[in-house]
Each structure stands twice: as C-alpha cells, then as structure tokens.
C-alpha cells in the first residue's frame, strides 16, 4: 500500500487545518476530499482472511446450508454463487446471535433432513441430485403447501432461507457487481439520467 508511510489521521489532520485557515468549520476542502475518502474506504475495507468456522450450525448442517445457498443462487457465466459471495457465513453469524433464526433455520434444516430420510432414507446431503431437486421443487413454492399441508413447514423454512441467501449474495462484492450497481463514489457533479426506454 502506497499510503502505509503516512497515517490517515495525519492526512485528515493536515487537511482539516487547511480548512480551518479559511473557515471556522471543521471540514475538508473539496480538492482533498476525494483522496481522504479513498483512504477511509481502504482502511475500513480491511477484511478478515482465512477459513470461516461456523458459529451456530454443526459442520454437517453448515455443509447442507452451503449447498442450499448455492442451489438458491448458483454460479453462472456472469458471477459466482451465494457460496462464493459469503452468504453461508453471513447467515450463520446472524443465526448464532438470534434465537428466532435458530428456530427457523436450525430447526428448518433438521426438518429437511428428517423429510429426506423419510422419503429417500438419507439426509439431504447424501441424497442423489435428482432427489435433492425433487424435494427443493416441493418446498420452493407456496402452492405445494396448499396442496399438501405436510410440506408447509418446509416451505416456510425455504422462503426465509431464500430471502437470507439473497441478502447475503446481493450485499456481497460479487453480488453488487452482478446487479450492476454503480456508485458509492466521489463525483464532482451528478450526471442525471441516461435516456429512459419507453414503457
């Protein structure tokens, strides 16, 4: 990092004193603000590296969670999937702190394994791909629960996991890029709207 030799605090202090000369307000002059913003962003971007250790789910459950997340938002030619985006880590962290999520997701995963064992004689992860597809196709739609009330808990569980997976994916770096969000930056003027296609 080119900025290592001088701390952000030093820079901000210098900038602030510059601003003070012309104004009683403690603010940063325009020409320096962009630089300061980049430094702040870089510093706050310091991410933790290494392998994630699940805080709530058992190792086996966590593998199931990862598989489900990836099934909900898979990798494709445009981007990685929910697993690469860190959705399972995000879900595990929040679940470890929230008893309601523990019931809905922890309990939901156990429901899924029990249902798979009833149907196929094995927990979800050990099932054949077509068996996994069959059960997911059942619990991924509300109308299936209306037809078969025994599925309703599974449908509720999957609906919540779908939302949480979408949260984890679309707030990740690759998810944001996939959506095409452009912004969170420093502009001298706002460009306005490109031509809007007709409705």
């Amino acid at each position, binding site marked *: 990092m080119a900025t290592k030799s001088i701390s952000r605090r030093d820079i901000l202090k210098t900038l602030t004193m510059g601003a003070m000369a012309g104004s009683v307000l403690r*603010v*940063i002059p325009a020409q320096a603000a962009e630089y300061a913003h980049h430094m702040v962003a870089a510093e706050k971007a310091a991410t933790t590296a290494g392998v994630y250790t699940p805080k709530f789910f058992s190792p086996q459950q966590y593998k199931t969670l990862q598989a489900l997340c990836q099934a909900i*938002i898979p990798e494709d030619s445009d981007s990685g999937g929910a697993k690469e985006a860190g959705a399972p880590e995000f879900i595990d*962290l929040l679940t470890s702190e*929230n008893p309601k999520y523990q019931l809905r997701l922890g309990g939901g995963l156990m429901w899924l394994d029990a249902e798979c064992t009833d149907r196929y004689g094995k927990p979800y992860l050990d099932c054949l791909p077509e068996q996994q597809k069959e059960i997911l196709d059942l619990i991924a739609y509300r109308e299936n629960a209306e037809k078969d009330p025994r599925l309703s808990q599974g449908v509720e569980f999957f609906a919540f996991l779908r939302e949480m997976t979408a949260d984890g994916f679309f707030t990740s770096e690759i998810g944001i890029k996939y959506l095409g969000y452009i912004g969170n930056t420093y502009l001298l003027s706002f460009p306005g709207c490109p031509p809007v296609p007709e409705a």
Partner: protein
Amino acid sequence: MAQVVRSPKVYDVCIIGSGAAGGTAAKVLTEGGLSVVMLEAGPPLNPEKDFKEHVWPYQLAHRGVGVGGEFRHELGDEFMAPNGAWEIDGEPYTSAPGSQFHWFRSRIVGGRTNHWGRIALRFAPVDFRARSTDGMGDDWPITYEEVSPYYDKVESYIGVFGTKENIPSAPDGIFLPPPVPRCTETIVKKACDKLNIHCVPSRMAILTKPVNGRAACHYCAQCGRGCITASNFSSSQVMIPPAQATGRFTLMTGAMAREIVVGKDGKAEAVAYIDKATRSEKRVHARAFMVAASACESARLLLNSRSTLFPDGLANSSGAVGRYLTDSVGSSAGGYFPQLEKMPPHNHDGVGGMHLYMPWWRYDRKNDFLRGYHIEFGGGRDMPGVGEFDGICKDHEGYGASLKQHCRTRYGTYIGFAGRGEMIPNERSYCEIDPDTVDQWGIPVLRFHWQWSDNEVKMAKDMQETFRSIVETAGGKFISKARPDGRHPYGIEDGGVIIHELGTARMGSNPKTSVLNKYCQAHDVDNVFVTDAAAFVTNPDKNPTLTIMALSWRASEYLIDQAKKGSL
C-alpha cells in the same frame, strides 16, 4: 452517595440540547457576545471515526443489519450516523393503554441533525393562521412575514438547494441550484405533470456549491450516514464549530438534564444534571436557559422541574406543557415500473434523498379533509441492502438461475412514495410524566397518549389514492400493504414514527392556553426559553427542522437584545 457539586461559574446562557435548536442558539448567542454552556446527554461526535460514509455492506460482518439482524427492515442500521434509536438502554418511555407512540431519540452532539432527512421546507403564511383559515387548532402569535427573515438567515448560512416555484403552499427561499433528476424522478414527474400535481426540485440542506468553506456534495447518496466533508447540514459540523471558535462556548457531554432549578425570585438559576460518567448530580448556573432538548424531552424537563412556586412543573401554569402533541400523518406505498428494467447500469446515487418532491397542490379547492400533505419519493438503482429482495423473492419463489436473473431484472425497478401530512392537535394526544417509571438516572420518564382523528385517516386514504394514480399514470404496477381497516387504516403510521413530534410547549399570546410568548420565552419565567419544536402551534405538511432553526435564531437574537438592554 450522590454528592451535589456546585459550579461557581455563572454563564450568560445555558442551552440544553445540541441539535437543530441548541446548535443554532449556540452559534447566534456566542457570536452575539454571550457566554454559553451547552449540556448534551450523549457523547461527543468524531466524524472521521464515527461516520461510515463509503463503506460497502460486505465490509461489515453483519452487512449493516447488526447483531442477530436486529436492524433488518429498521430505520437505524449500522450505516446510520451514530446514536439515534427508537429504544435507548436504561432510558425508557411508556405508552398509555391503547396508545401507540414511537419516540426516536438521539444522544450525541448534534442530536438528530446527524441523521435527519435534510428536507428543509419553509412553512407557508397560511400555516401560521390555521384557526383563522378553517376554524381548527390555533393561530400562531407570529406571522410568516416575521419568520421569513430568519428563514433567509438560516438558508443562507446552512445552504439549501431548491428552485423558485411561486407555489403558495411552499414558499420559495434562498436556494442553491438543485441537482438534476434521477431516472426514477423523471418518470414520476411526467406522470405528475399529466395529473396536475406539482412535482418540483426538492429543498434540501445539502450543498450543491461550496458554502462558507464547506465543500460541495460529492453525490454518494449517503447523507444519513453522516458526511465527512460536512456537505450537508448537521448541527455538530455546522453550528457547534463556529460557537467553539468564539472562545465563549463550553460543551458538556454526557450531561443529562434532570431539573431546572428556580430561585426564590421565581427565576431559573441553574440546571441540575446527571454527569453520566460519574453517575453524580451536578449543577450549572446561568442567567438564562434555552431548553432545546427536542419537543418531548423539553416537555419532560419542564414537567420534572417542580417546585413550591411551580408545583405542576416549570412554565406550566397553563397546563399546556406536554399537550397539543402532534406528528406528521404518514402513509406510504410504491410501484413496480417495468420500463426501469431496461435502464442500463448507471450511477443513480445523487444526494442523500430526493431530487424532486411534490408539495401540496390542492390548496385552491375544498377537499375531503382539512389541511394538506406533500409527497416524498425514492427508489431505483440504490446501493443494495439487506432485506431489499424480500418482495422479489416472495413474488418469484423457486430457486436457481431463474431466481438469480429475476432479481437482477427487478433490481432498481421499485419506487416508493410517502405522504407527509398535517395533523390537527387533539385532546387525546399528549405526553405526561409516568407516575411509576424512572430511567436509570432516576429521572421520571414520559408516558404517551395517542389517537389519530378522522381528518388524518381521510388524509391517509387520499394519499393512497394519489400514489396509485401516480404509479398507474406512469405505467407502473401499484403495490401497497395499506388496508382501510385495522390498526393502521390506509397505512397511517403510529404516532411519532415520522419523527416530527412537536407542540408540547406551544407559543401563544394567551398565557392561559400557551407556554411561551412569540419569542419562545416562557410566560411564567422570563429567563427560560424553549426553542425546539415544542414551541410550534401547528404541524403543517413541512418538515419542522428549518422552522426550528429559524425560531431558535430569532429567539437568540431577542435574548441578545435583552442582554444588551441589561434585562438578562
């Protein structure tokens, strides 16, 4: 083992609260030559450290929704500027049975101006003459013409963008140029033009040009996170620093005011406050007091300031303290706009808030309800956040490639609308001291009573109808959770939710029915002023902050004038 420590120093003025009202008073009073001490119940603010400007959600382990996802779908997330919350540990408030009231409070230098929406609207002449106009509520003891020069001063100093429109319900001010509209806004404006609804550049306290050494906005859309360059208005960055620069300003943080202490002569002489760091009670002495703790907190302080001279609370011989509590009427809905699916990715951020809005447009005819409302709106290709795809997931269901693609297609195609209307004060909406509850500092807390009247519900109904017509005229699909019945008829929000609560120490010319005179000075105690929105007589469809600052500025100049005459 509370030990009462007496400060020997007597300041000219003690200000309680550091937000819009307190900050304005601090600047004006110190620059006018008076010595000022300010009590703030929260900690100091350090923008460089405390603001999360430009942080991405993935840079936070909880992606912004906090421990256990507690802020999912909540206003206050991890990104928001610090110390604003619906609940504060150890500092409760209560609601009477059958009443639903929510109180957003802030404990930090700058108060709620650190997170506010920056919407800076003048009240209209008619807003000061409510009773004369339609027989409901009361008139203010001041007119628009008396307040207007102070709007000028505030706007010139803090910087507000907007355009001259000559709309009677939304007076023009001194404006910086507005930012150009976003795609979502051009679509909505076209529909409004067809419907003869005014849709004009919004008026926001955000700099589109440098002002007084503050840099212009850099269009990151994150005003609510706090702005490191102070390109938007907050008291902490724009009002407090010039007060400090005078050398006549003392800021005491972690100082929770408990009581205004009155001398034998019936004048206020000190504030007893809790020093939170040591949990001890201290006093600070002054010649005059400006209560600016936010409308309900100010009412609480007055009501808790009981003495033999003032058994019902300070400045409360009228019994009006805590009464006439209002909030804005809020109802919201939205729409899905298929044409936005075709928009190429582009920077949609803009300022932190709307570039256009709809001021009240039906002022020239009779409506189903009295008074009016304005419409705020937003949406489009904002920075993605947790919870944002819930609706899309629910709609689409399923999983896999098609769900993923559907989310991308629908991203940025939703526009939300929120009405902000005028509530008329009623007898069933007020706050009082809860006889059974104290906070962790031993200070009795507020209990809220709340009831909307028919006029507000009719207004919410009208809002929903208007939202629908705008969405459908613009070629969108209307989406609303509002139902005509239930606890929230037509989507009307609970009291306090819009965070425009005010009126609890209103001004008036009659001391029997009001707390303050036209200079925000207590009728009963002439060295006590209340300069926040407690002083308001009506709660028109304009966000209160700009008027809070104008009235506080005016009261401060009056106080300086009194001091010069030797009557302080």
